[in-house]
């Protein structure tokens, strides 16, 4: 922290000012001129929260994607399909057993298993051939999308999360003062805050896993030089399968979490694939912190775009990608 401030004093000041302005925007009661300029505070805060929770969801999906790529140089374009399959499986199990958490666990494990199968049956056969692996995952995603459409039809499914996750929480943020002087507090769905909390928890867990465990150390070593890693006697195929399981499992997990926050329907696979792609392109392929930064940028851009200039929202996301590619082709946290 201190080193950063000393080395990049200018950027430290910029970041500090940005955080200060943001904090003021969140906690202060907006004066009239600001309200006239960018609309009601409630819209702003809700958009901000929506953006951050969406970012959490994107992080859950994209972190698996980026983890798999970082270690195996393997772009799994069927990642969106794993997300959707996780959502559907979780829904079926949750409906049958009546327990949402059981559905979540089954989705994680089942999709992790599917990931291991993909890794063992397909990717291991064509190691080092990036293009073929990518084409195979495209083929799998076409078939998977069609089969899922056949089984679960085009209907939109809606989860029922546990009771205590329902409802709205009152945040300690004042939107406006009533004429009597009483403050009006902003309310926000509990479930979405839980999504955000889950994403943060998963992020921390991933960080601990990568930085504090033996397997994580192997993964990091593998990202740097996998040939050297296998030369030191590590069982690299097993490691690959493990990482693939975690990455795929996270997609399935996100399928249930995201399916509850929004809904699950055909086409969501492409949406989350696009989100993962842009998040990792922006954040840097193979970097978990990069995925977090990218997810935050893209989630916020998408929600603010939707709220403030609806028909051009996608262009905003796209612009972020182009700017990052122009300035830092390897992504914000990417290394090459």
């Amino acid at each position, binding site marked *: 922290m201190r080193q950063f401030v000393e080395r990049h004093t200018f950027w430290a000041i910029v970041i500090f000012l940005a955080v200060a302005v943001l904090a003021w925007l969140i906690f202060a009661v907006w004066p009239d001129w600001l309200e006239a300029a960018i609309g009601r505070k409630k819209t702003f805060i809700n958009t901000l929260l929506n953006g951050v929770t969406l970012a959490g969801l994107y992080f859950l999906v994209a972190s698996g994607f980026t983890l798999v790529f970082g270690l195996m140089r393997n772009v799994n374009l069927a990642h969106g399909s794993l997300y959707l399959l996780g959502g559907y499986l979780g829904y079926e199990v949750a409906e049958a057993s009546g327990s949402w958490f059981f559905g979540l666990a089954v989705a994680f494990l089942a999709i992790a298993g599917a990931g291991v199968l993909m890794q063992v049956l397909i990717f291991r056969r064509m190691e080092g051939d990036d293009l073929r692996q990518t*084409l195979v995952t495209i*083929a799998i995603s*076409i078939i998977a999308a069609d089969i899922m459409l*056949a089984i679960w039809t085009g209907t939109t499914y809606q989860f029922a999360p546990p009771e205590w996750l329902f409802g709205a929480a009152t945040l300690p943020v004042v939107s406006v003062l009533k004429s009597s002087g009483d403050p009006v507090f902003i309310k926000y769905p509990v479930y979405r805050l839980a999504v955000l909390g889950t994403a943060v928890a998963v992020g921390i867990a991933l960080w601990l896993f990568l930085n504090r465990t033996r397997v994580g150390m192997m993964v990091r070593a593998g990202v740097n030089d996998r040939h050297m890693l296998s030369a030191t006697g590590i069982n690299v195929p097993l490691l690959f399968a493990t990482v693939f399981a975690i990455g795929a499992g996270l997609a399935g997990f996100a399928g249930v979490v995201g399916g509850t926050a929004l809904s699950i329907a055909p086409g969501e696979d492409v949406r989350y694939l696009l989100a993962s792609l842009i998040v990792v*392109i922006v954040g840097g*392929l193979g970097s978990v912190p990069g995925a977090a930064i990218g997810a935050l940028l893209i989630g916020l851009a998408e929600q603010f775009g939707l709220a403030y200039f609806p028909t051009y929202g*996608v262009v905003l*996301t796209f612009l972020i*990608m182009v700017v990052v*590619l122009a300035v830092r082709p390897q992504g914000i946290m990417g290394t090459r």
Partner: protein
Amino acid sequence: MDARQLFSGNLSLADVHPGVALTVVFLLAYPGFASDFFVFQIGAYSLILGTISLSLMMLAGYGGMVSLAQLTIAGIAGYLVAILGDNSVGVMGLGWPWWLTVPAALLAAVLFSTFIGAISVRTDGIYMIMITLAIAVAFFYFVRQNYVLFNGFTGFAGIEPPTLFGIYWRDPVPFYYLSLFVAAGFFWAVRYAARSTYGLSLQAIRDNPRRMRALGYDVTLHRIVAHILAGVIAGTAGILLVWFNGRISPGSVGIDVAIDILVIAVVGGLRHPIGPFLGAIVFVLLENFAIDLIDRERFNTVIGVAFLLVVLFSPDGLLGLFNRIRSQVQLGRRTRLEAGRPATGGRNVVGSIEQN
């Protein structure tokens, strides 16, 4: 057949492979014996899809850059024809004459293609696929949301090709010949470009960019030029496609269609410009007649499985399969002829020619 011979005038008919001559005669005579459905829905459509895939084949096969945004480029040209020309929806439709609309649409497509090239050539390999895929999906969502310019979900309908020289160009036979002319022209152009100095250096860049850079070649410029050329091909095909369909909507530039283009190119084969056209014929025939064998709804599964099988077992597509069978047959024949002597190299010789 060297391209230079073509211009120095010593190309004799004897140099033309009988298979090529037969194909040319067949393609020219095709409308004579086929029904309108086969001429228009199968023939012309295959040629157009083949041309779009040809632009992908050119980028991927010679430049080593797999782009999923070729359909997006074609889509931009198509959308601009609808926006600048006439359409029956009542949104936009500036009513420009065709000789302004077509060059403008083509120019926009080429500019967009150049732009895609410029941002994606800074990275390579897998990154390129991801970036172009992201562009394709973003464009799809953009045209679906934007009602002012692109008329959102509905898109445009009633887009007509011009009536020229007293011929209505959307009639099956004229349209077939128009598509054939465009497709054959680009086919020849790609073949020619592949053997030009530029094409050879592009292929060398595909094989080893670092060495080429060290030799003093401008790698980035070569790649961007490849995108420009591919943009011309895809843009022209996009104009034909919008005339063929008479309408364009976000569904026409959707990600599934973009992947179909990739499927066509890969299934056909990325090593030779004839591959995309082969792939397109197979794809269009499957699309039209697979209904008889399997539920229409499950068409994507058929395509996906076919794609998966090709990628898993014959990475060079149908062309690779064909070459393998041919070399097996030749090998077998040679072993019979040279019985007693070990027949070596037969397979390698054929293989190395195809590796150009």
